């Protein structure tokens, strides 16, 4: 209920702000939705959206594959932490545009280069999240499990993983947020299709209606993924958690 209210408020604020500029420069929500619907009805959305989604998902999976093991290693091993700490910071500092340029220059203007650039940009943030998570593991519970003669695999699976999993979940959401943005940027400089390509295309034609329509599309898809996929997963996995009353 509160969510719906906040959504409606956001749309109203958009509408009011759009009145300050001419509609061809800052179209309001109704105009934007109309343009977007026109694009969808004309069948001009599916390919670009699908390509972007593919890059996002592939990039996220690769980022998790790169980021999670490094984070776990850093959380478990003090020496690894000392060595990799600086690397992660450097990785985090380099702007995503630099990764994109490097990937396209070194690997060519292809899909693999795009996905690598996306994954490498997001991986350090994922690593930091997981690293924190592993450091926060409650070793007292591990001692308890050892007293009860739990085997090493059982301790990992039933005592450690449930403690780390919330951080993996948070990393995924967080990573997804970053990856959307990088993907659009990567498409803008090096791909012949996708939402980012479209945004740049319409920008060059100075068609703000189309630019906002594609932005709106993107935002809606993002919210749907969050609400329809991630939230329910989280709710099911963490049903045991107490509600925090402040």
């Amino acid at each position, binding site marked *: 209920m509160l969510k719906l209210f906040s959504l409606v408020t956001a749309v109203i604020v958009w509408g009011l702000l759009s009145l300050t500029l001419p509609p061809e420069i800052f179209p309001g929500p109704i105009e934007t939705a109309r343009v977007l619907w026109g694009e969808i009805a004309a069948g001009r959305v599916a390919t670009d959206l699908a390509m972007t989604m593919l890059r996002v998902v592939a990039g996220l999976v690769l980022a998790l594959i790169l980021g999670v093991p490094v984070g776990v290693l850093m959380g478990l091993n003090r020496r690894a932490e000392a060595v990799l700490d600086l690397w992660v910071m450097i990785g985090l500092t380099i702007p995503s545009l630099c990764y994109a340029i490097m990937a396209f220059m070194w690997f060519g203007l292809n899909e693999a280069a795009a996905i690598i650039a996306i994954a490498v940009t997001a991986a350090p943030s994922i690593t930091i999240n997981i690293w924190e998570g592993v450091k926060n593991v409650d070793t*007292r*519970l591990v*001692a*308890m*499990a*050892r*007293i*009860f*003669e*739990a*085997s090493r695999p*059982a301790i990992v699976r*039933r*005592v450690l993983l*449930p403690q780390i999993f919330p951080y993996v979940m948070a990393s995924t959401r967080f990573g997804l947020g970053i990856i959307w943005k990088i993907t659009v940027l990567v498409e803008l400089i090096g791909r012949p299709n996708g939402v980012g390509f479209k945004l740049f295309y319409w920008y060059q034609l100075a068609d703000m209606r189309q630019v906002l329509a594609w932005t709106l599309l993107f935002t809606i898809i993002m919210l749907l993924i969050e609400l329809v996929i991630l939230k329910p997963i989280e709710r099911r996995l963490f049903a*045991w*958690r*107490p509600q925090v009353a402040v």
Partner: protein
Amino acid sequence: MKPAIEVASLRKTFQGRDGTARAILRDLDMAVGAGEFLCILGPSGCGKSTLLNVLAGLDKAYEGRAEVSGGRIGYLFQEPRLLPWLTADENLDFALASCRVPTSRRSELKSRYLAMTGLSEYRNYYPHQISGGMAQRLALVRALCVEPGILLMDEPFSGLDEITARRIRFDLLTIWEETRKTIVFVTHNAYEACFLADRILVMSDGAFRQEMRVPIARPRSYDDAAIFELSRDVIKAFGDEIDREPVLFAAPATEPGLDPGRHAAARMNI
């Protein structure tokens, strides 16, 4: 008969940050008979938890001998240490499965000890949904239902309010009288030790200072005047012990001028 626990010349030193070695356990000798209820009484930091960790096999860096032969070990920590993502029932299953208790025996064991502690109705509750006292009682059930020969308990009731603690102490004695497990119970509370134990070993600065038998008949009542008197004697004797060997008792440097005897008594919770 062979004792359930035998400790001989047990030493452990801890390498401090500045490189100096600090003795935590100094040449401990003790034997605990099968079915005995032993309390180790001492102020915080005297090494009693370390001794328990050695007995439990959690701490393997020591010199000397520490043998436990009376069967599987059950352990009750100061905190419940339940897995928060499992219900009460699943927490018990985790322990039972880890200890490889046959599946056919599990539900009987669970029901029995849950009933003994009045937790039968709370099987499907998560740890955060029950009170601290209930959680600690559930931890007691978990320790008991794996059918240990020996129960090690590390100040298990010190974090609870007095009324709850009394109730669980009473439960514990009832269960012990029925099952006669060997119990080593570590505490800084002299009254608790006198109420529970057959024998008390007073510990300070990594060594046993005194051994006392508790000649009070069972079943005991918590308000028994004899327990009160004995606990007073224990604390007094403990104070004398410290006065006699002032060098061995290292009072924290941050509290100069504090009479060590009184200081220890104050920390012993009476």
